[in-house]
């Protein structure tokens, strides 16, 4: 599903964000990407959605080498990858329904498909009764669930989550994790960057640890640190 071979990312100011990172994520896996701030987690996710390109090395998603994509192909790549953000990135002037439908409209999905698909994911994340509210009328956890619904509505093969529980209280965070577990159970591959030690330790999934741009640990059913 996702293959990275010796990828490095060095920014113009000389900062080494990733240094010779190699890893493979199989279809259906749930992977935690852990490490301190500045370890390179977000850079890695940005390379996967082709928001940035590696300075060297090879990265491919679904057997597609991301280095040689044309602009239009980048758009098509992103239709197969759902992304959820720590800051939700919801459009404040659109309702919950419109925020989710937006992801289908911009890829020119047939109108008759949009409504049932949006309601289906809103039901999955438990927000069917809040479809007509604006993001400012929702709690943080609810906004994150809208973000998750938007990421899932295209039925992506791969879901990237960048600190999805970073702004949420423990109970709400668990709610989101339950949802991600359910989405993964239905077959979607998930790569989640997180600082949340408790969640990683309790979920016992594969853990890839980055530190100062280097891959320092890759443990199946691991904890947040080697000791846990």
């Amino acid at each position, binding site marked *: 599903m996702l293959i990275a071979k010796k990828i490095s990312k060095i920014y113009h100011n000389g900062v080494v964000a990733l240094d010779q990172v190699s890893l493979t994520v199989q279809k259906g896996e749930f992977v935690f990407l852990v490490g301190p701030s500045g370890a390179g987690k977000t850079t890695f996710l940005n390379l996967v*959605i082709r*928001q940035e390109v590696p300075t060297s090395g090879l990265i491919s998603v679904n057997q597609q080498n991301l280095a040689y994509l044309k*602009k*239009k192909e980048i*758009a*098509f*790549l*992103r*239709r197969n990858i759902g*992304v959820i953000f720590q800051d939700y*990135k919801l*459009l404040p*002037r659109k309702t919950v329904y419109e925020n989710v439908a*937006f*992801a289908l*409209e*911009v*890829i*020119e999905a047939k*109108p008759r498909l949009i409504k049932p698909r949006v309601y289906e994911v809103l039901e999955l994340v438990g927000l069917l009764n809040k479809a007509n509210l604006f993001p400012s009328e929702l709690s943080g956890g609810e906004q994150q669930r809208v973000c998750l619904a*938007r990421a899932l509505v*295209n039925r992506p093969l791969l879901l990237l989550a960048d600190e999805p529980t970073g702004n949420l209280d423990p109970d709400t965070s668990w709610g989101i994790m339950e949802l991600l577990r359910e989405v993964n159970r239905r077959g979607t591959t998930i790569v989640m960057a997180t600082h949340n030690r408790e969640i990683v330790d309790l979920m016992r999934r594969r853990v890839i640890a980055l530190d100062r741009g280097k891959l320092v640990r890759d443990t199946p059913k691991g904890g947040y640190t080697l000791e846990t």
Partner: protein
Amino acid sequence: MKPRTFFYFLREALRGLVRNRVMTLTALGIITIGLFLFGLFFLLTANLHHLTVLAWDGIEVRVFLEPTVTNPEKIGAELAALPGVKKVKYVSKAEGAAALERMLGNQNLFLNGENPLPAAFNLSVQEAADLPTLARQAAAIPGVEEVVFKQEFVKFLEIAIRLIMIFGFALLSLTAFAVLYIIVNTIQLTVYARRQELEIMKLVGATDTFVRWPFLLEGIILGLLGAGLALLFLREGYSFLVDRIQHYRRFLPLLSGPELELKLTAVLLGMGLFFGGFGSYLSLKRYLKV
């Protein structure tokens, strides 16, 4: 493009304009003011040009005939065929004398009642005609004794026309650039206010074309609305001005009428459409690199 997609773009554009109404109204106000100023300079230049054309229309070349000429019609036809001649009017000896008497108010102008004035042709000339050449060509026609025109005035008028053309072109070009600059910056602000929307569109897999169209349409709608408002203010203001001037200063004939209105409408709507669309296109470029 599928009609469904186009209507989606249009709906999104209208929705964008309504939901971001503060930015919309600000941009609309600025575009209206810019296009109003451009229209004002357009009218000013057009009127200056019109006044010089009127002055040119007043210029006459007088072609005096030899006393022995018996076939003035033939000379008249030859004069009419010269390049730059608009109209030819024959003034017989008697008509010339009558005109002179009218001018001087003396009924017994000539000794022994003998009329010494030659028969002549008065030529009206086209705007910017080459008068010295025309005079030379007219003088070369057999039967023509002398050709007279106000050379100094013609020279002055020629310079005035050239200056007005240069001044008008420079003024309109400068205003057009200033208006374009203002419109691009204004639209850039509206796009900046919605950069998150653009980023999300790109991240969920929208193509550049798909992201661009609603914004282009928004720019075009804003440009056309701005042009429409500017036209409304200009029409009302200008007809008020023409009425006032014609009331107090009848000798100053300002341009008016449907032809001018049509020209102004076409120019301003064209500018609104182009500047709005182009402004959006330029503003978006930076945000499509996500």
